[in-house]
């Protein structure tokens, strides 16, 4: 695909040519919709005989596969079209209120508006249940906690407070529990990745350096962003499923069990909420245990942070392409805005984390 000058819409082969707007995003939308529809049909869970039963319906798997195929076809077409975009033509909006602004930029902001609604829905759900359900710790302190209580036990109980063994929770740094460290590192990683994106943009716009140096620097900044995003998802997995322990059981150097190991799951209808009254030599010698239902807190945590994680992963897919293009000399001052437009998405993901981190991890 080639782009003509904005004031020269003449095409050698077809006479007047129109701006080459991409229809690939429509394919991406259909593909992802089909994939999600198929996912919901293939993997199901039902409540039977007082227990959850899981099933995989292989007969419906074709919907998922077709969705993925359409999605990847959309990505390939999108990238193929973008690969040759040298910035010599940029479609501008003609009508108010966006007159003179790049159509791509407006479209990106429209997309971000829809994303704001998605995350607002998740936050509203969180607020509704957090304010509506009684807090497990408050119930325990008031003496109203009983077996079978449905209450709210925030993720921060496990992450920022060290769980039920918080009195003896390990703190390698001395002032914060080890369980908070993966989330804290992730917060810094996202902030730094936002910075590396703007550095890539700034460098791509820089006309004072040679083309080879520019390509190398932009590539390095984008690659750094990709590595930080990878780090983010790795720590997310560590925090959710894997945990991280260093040293022996008697003398731990670093001890951060996963949320799964701590029992904070979406099926925690009988979570053993433990209150320790007396500690002796890091052992609880007098404790009360109540089986409580904390599924709402776990569900809102995993759905919200998981949705955010999917957005990080989506950004990583785009970054793989952009890094390749950058090292091949694909970004110049003329088309540097492509980095800016990806950056808008990436900063939005960072912005969401600014809310997610304190709301779910810290309080």
């Amino acid at each position, binding site marked *: 695909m080639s782009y003509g000058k904005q004031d020269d819409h003449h095409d050698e082969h077809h006479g007047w040519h129109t701006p080459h707007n991409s229809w690939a995003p429509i394919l991406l939308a259909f593909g992802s919709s089909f994939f999600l529809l198929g996912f919901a049909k293939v993997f199901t869970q039902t409540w039977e005989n007082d227990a959850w039963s899981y099933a995989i319906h292989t007969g419906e798997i074709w919907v998922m596969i077709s969705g993925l195929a359409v999605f990847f076809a959309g990505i390939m077409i999108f990238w193929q079209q973008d690969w040759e975009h040298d910035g010599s033509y940029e479609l501008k909006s003609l009508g108010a*209120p*966006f007159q*003179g*602004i790049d159509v791509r*930029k*407006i479209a990106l*902001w*429209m997309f*971000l*508006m829809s994303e*704001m*609604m998605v995350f*607002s*829905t998740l*936050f*509203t*759900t*969180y*607020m*509704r*249940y957090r*304010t*509506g*359900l009684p807090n497990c710790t408050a119930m325990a302190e008031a003496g109203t906690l009983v077996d079978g209580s449905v209450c709210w036990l925030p993720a921060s109980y496990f992450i*920022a*407070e*060290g769980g039920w063994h*918080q009195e003896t*929770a390990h*703190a390698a740094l*001395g*002032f*914060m*529990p080890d369980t*908070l460290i993966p989330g*804290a590192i992730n*917060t*810094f990683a996202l*902030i*730094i990745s*936002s*910075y590396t*994106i*703007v*550095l890539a943009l*700034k460098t791509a716009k820089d*006309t004072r350096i040679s083309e080879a140096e520019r390509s190398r620097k932009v590539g390095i900044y984008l690659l750094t962003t990709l590595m930080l995003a990878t780090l983010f998802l790795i720590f997310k997995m560590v925090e959710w499923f894997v945990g991280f322990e260093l040293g022996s059981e008697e003398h731990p150097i670093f001890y951060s069990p996963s949320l799964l190991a701590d029992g904070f799951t979406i099926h925690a209808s009988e979570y053993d909420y433990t209150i320790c009254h007396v500690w002796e030599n890091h052992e609880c010698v007098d404790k009360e245990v109540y089986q409580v239902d904390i599924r709402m807190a776990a569900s809102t945590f995993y759905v919200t942070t998981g949705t955010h994680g999917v957005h990080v992963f989506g950004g990583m897919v785009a970054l793989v392409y952009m890094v390749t293009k950058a090292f091949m000399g694909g970004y110049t001052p003329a088309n540097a805005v492509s980095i*800016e437009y990806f*950056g*808008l998405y990436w*900063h*939005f993901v*960072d*912005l969401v984390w*600014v*809310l997610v*981190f*304190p709301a779910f991890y*810290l*309080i």
Partner: protein
Amino acid sequence: MSEEEHDHHHTILGFDAYNFNFAVLMIFTAIEVVAVALTFSMKGTVSMSTVIWILVVVGVVKGFGISAVFMHLRGDPDSRVLTATALFPVFFIVVMILFIGMTHPESADSLPAWCRPGFYD
């Protein structure tokens, strides 16, 4: 916009806007983490409401820094209209938070019968 104008408006207090913003974001993130860490290491000395206020202030500063500087919602010729665009969903978000997020999960039980599930006449 010329290169000179572009360079000029991308400075804060004489520093490069991106670098300045990055430094502010890092400092405020450190404050955020330390504030919560203190509730762990100095139990009983820092109240949760104090921590929440610190987190709100930090969140506002970080949110402004990212959107205004990194997302170019301040200083660019199209900043104003794009800020208005970005704020458009806020109306719906406020409605959602006020009327759904802040209500009790069982509040639907007190609605009139015609407004509850199962009333199909």
